[in-house]
C-alpha cells in the first residue's frame, strides 16, 4: 500500500465532492487528506486527494472519478512525481515560550515561524511534508500544546504547465 495523490479538475457544480467521496466509500477506501479550491483556470475547481491503496485500485478510482459528467480530468501521482506541501498550525501557551528556551530552539530547528503572540498563547506555523509537521508536533506535545491542525495536501506536478491547460486547449 502506497500513498497516492489524485488531482481532480471539475466544473464548478454542486455535489462533485459528494460524487468523488462516493467512489472511495463504495470501495472501502479511506481518503487520507483532501483539499478543494478554485484552480488557476477560471471556473475550474481543483481537488487534491491523498489515499493509501495499490496502484491498480487507484488507477481505477481516478478513471471512475473522471467518468463523472462534470469532471474534466483526474490525474494519479505517486509522491515522486509531484512537489507537495502541507501546512500545520500549533498553539502553545505563551509562558512556555517565554520561560522555556527550548521552545525557541525547537521552532528554529524546524524552520517554523510564529504567526501570532498574545499574552495567553503563541501560534506557530510549519509547512512541509506530513513527516515534518508531525516531527514538530511530537516535540511541541511536551510543551503543553493547546491546539494542532494540519491542512490537506497541496501539490503541483513537476512539468512546466498545468496538464489541464493542454486538455482545455483541445476541448474548448
Amino acid at each position, binding site marked *: 500500500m502506497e500513498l497516492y495523490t489524485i488531482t481532480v479538475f471539475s*466544473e464548478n457544480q*454542486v455535489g462533485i465532492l*459528494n460524487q468523488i467521496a*462516493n467512489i472511495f466509500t463504495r470501495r472501502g477506501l479511506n481518503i487520507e487528506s483532501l483539499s478543494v479550491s478554485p484552480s488557476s483556470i477560471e471556473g475550474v475547481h481543483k481537488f487534491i486527494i491523498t489515499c493509501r491503496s495499490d496502484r491498480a485500485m487507484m488507477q*481505477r478510482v481516478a478513471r471512475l472519478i473522471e467518468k463523472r459528467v462534470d*469532471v*474534466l480530468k483526474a490525474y494519479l501521482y505517486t509522491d515522486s512525481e509531484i512537489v507537495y506541501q502541507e501546512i500545520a498550525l500549533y498553539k502553545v501557551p505563551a509562558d512556555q515560550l517565554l520561560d522555556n528556551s527550548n521552545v525557541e530552539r525547537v521552532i528554529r530547528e524546524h524552520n517554523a515561524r510564529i504567526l501570532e503572540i498574545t499574552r495567553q498563547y503563541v501560534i506557530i506555523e510549519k509547512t512541509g511534508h506530513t513527516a515534518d509537521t508531525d516531527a514538530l508536533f511530537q516535540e511541541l506535545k511536551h510543551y503543553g500544546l493547546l491546539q494542532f491542525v494540519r491542512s490537506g495536501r497541496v501539490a503541483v506536478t513537476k512539468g512546466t504547465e498545468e496538464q489541464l491547460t493542454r486538455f482545455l486547449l483541445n476541448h*474548448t
Partner: protein
Amino acid sequence: MANEEMISGSEMLMRILQREGVEYVFGYPGGSIMPVYDALYRHQGDIPHILTRHEQGAIHAAEGYARVSGKPGVVFSTSGPGATNLVTGMADALADSTPLVIITGQVDTEHLGFDAFQETDVVGMSLPVTKWSYQIRKAEDVAWAVARAFYVASTGRPGPVVLDFTHTAQCAKAVWDYHPCTRLRSYAPVPEIQSKPLAEAAVLLNSSRKPLILAGHGVALAKAEKQLAEVAEKIDAPVGLTLLGLSALPSSHPLCLGMAGMHGNIPVNIATNQADVILAVGMRFDNRVTGATEHYARQAKIIHIDIDETEFNKSIPADVAIHADAREALDKLLPLLRRNEHADWRAELKPHAEAEERLVIQPETAEREDCIHMGAVVSRVSAAFGDDAIVVTDVGLNQMMSARYSRFTQPDSIVTSGGLGTMGFGLPAAIGAKLARPDREVVLFLGDGGFQMTMQELGTIMEHNLDIKIVLLNNNFLGNVRQMQAMFCERRFSATPLANPDFMKIASAYGIASEDVERPEQLDDAIARMAAHKGAFLLNVNIDEENMVFPITRGGDPVDTIYVNLTDRYQG
C-alpha cells in the same frame, strides 16, 4: 427585448419534451410536482402521460420503453416518497445502461434543508445510482439542465439522469430560449477510435485458429447487430451472447452458440476456456458471465471493445482494448479482417451443443406426463409467436428459463433486468416495451413472486388496453432462491414458499382475459388461444416446484465447471 417570451419553468419543460421528441411520460403526481402536471394538462395532446400505479412501475416502464426504442424514457414523480420509490429503477437503469430522464418534484427553494413536508435529498440519494443528477433551483436553469439531461442520458454509455425540479423553478418565469445540448467539455461520450489497437486486434483475429466472439448489450445500444454478424461471418467465429445481448444475433444464425455465463449454453462456456482469441464487444465480463475470474479464458488473447474505458481490465485483463462505440469499432475492424474458415473449431464445439440438447434441453422442453417445466412453456410460447416477439422477463428461474428457451429473430427483443436483477421489473417494463413497439407482440414471463411485487400495474395495462401476453410460471415458490436452498442449504426452504392468491380472479378484476394451465396436456391449446387473443392475456401455468434451471456454473467455480443437474458435472 420585445420578442422575448417569458414562460414558467413547467411550461418550458413541456416544450422541451416536445422538442426532444418525447413520445410518452411515465409518472405519478403529487404536491411538489403539481405545476408540472398542470402544464402537462395543457399539453395532453402532445405528450401522452402514462399514470402507473406506483412510481417503481413508472420508472421500470420507462426503462422498458427505452430498451426497445433506444430513446430516453421520461419519468415524473413528486418529491419525498415519490422520489424514493424511484431509486430501485435508477440503480437498475444504471446497471443496464438504460437512458432515462427522471424529473422529481422538489419543495420550494426557501424550504430546502429545513425538513419541509416531503423534502428528501434527492440529489444526494441519487448521485451514486445515476449518471448525472442535478437540482434545478431557478427557471433560468430549466432549459440548460433539461437539454443537458437528454444529452447525457442518451450519449456515450447511456444511463439514468435525475433533475430535481424545485417547486420554485417550476412556477417562476424565464425567457424561453432553448438550444439542445450537443457537447460538454467535461464529457467525451464518443471516444476517438485509435487505429493501433484496431490493427493489433486484426492481427490477432487473422492468425487465430479458435476465435470466439462474446457480444453484449453494447451491440444493441450501438445498433451494431449487422456489423456483428458481418464480422462473425467473415472470420467464421462462433458467437456467445450475454443475457442483455441475446437478440443481437438471430438465434437461428449458424454461428450463434447461445448465452454465456452461469446458466448459459454449454458450448459458449466451454469455448471461452478453449478459444485462442476472444473478441468481446460491448460486454463487461460481469461475474455472472465469468465465474471465477482467475480461471476465465486464461489461454486466450482478449480483445475488448467498449465505449466505457473503466470497463477495461476491471475483472478480465484485455490484451487489446478498443475504446469505441461498438458499431464504429466493428465497422473499422471489418476491412482489416481476412475472410477465414474455422470448420474444425466449430466441429469441436458441436458435441457440446449436442450434449446440452440431450442432457438438459430435451428433458426440459419435452412434454411430460406428470408435470410442467418452464422450458416447455417458454419454447412453446416462443414458437407460437414465430420466435419474433419482444420477450420481457422478471427475475429468477422464469428469467433464466425465458432467456434460455426463447428464440430471437430481431434486434431489441429482450428486456430483462440483468445487472441489478430487480424482481418486479417485468410487468411495468412490458408496458413500456409495448408502448414503444405497438406493432410487435410483447410476451412477458414472470414468476409468482416477482409478479406480486408490481402486480398493481395490471391497472395500467387495463387502462391503456395494452396487448401484452403475460405468462406466469407459477411454482408457488420463490423458485430461484429455493433452487439455491436445494443446492446449498440441504433443502431448508427458509421463507421461499408462497401463499398465492387466485391469479385468475385478479386478472378478471382488471378485465384481463386469463386461463389456467394445470396439466401438461392443456398447455398447447391454451398457448394457441393466448396467441390468437387480441388484447392482454394472463396465462397462469402451474409449474413443478422441483423444476430448476440447468446447466449451472456455481459462483466461484471456473466458467467451464458446469453441472447439468443437481449432482452431475458435465464431463465434455
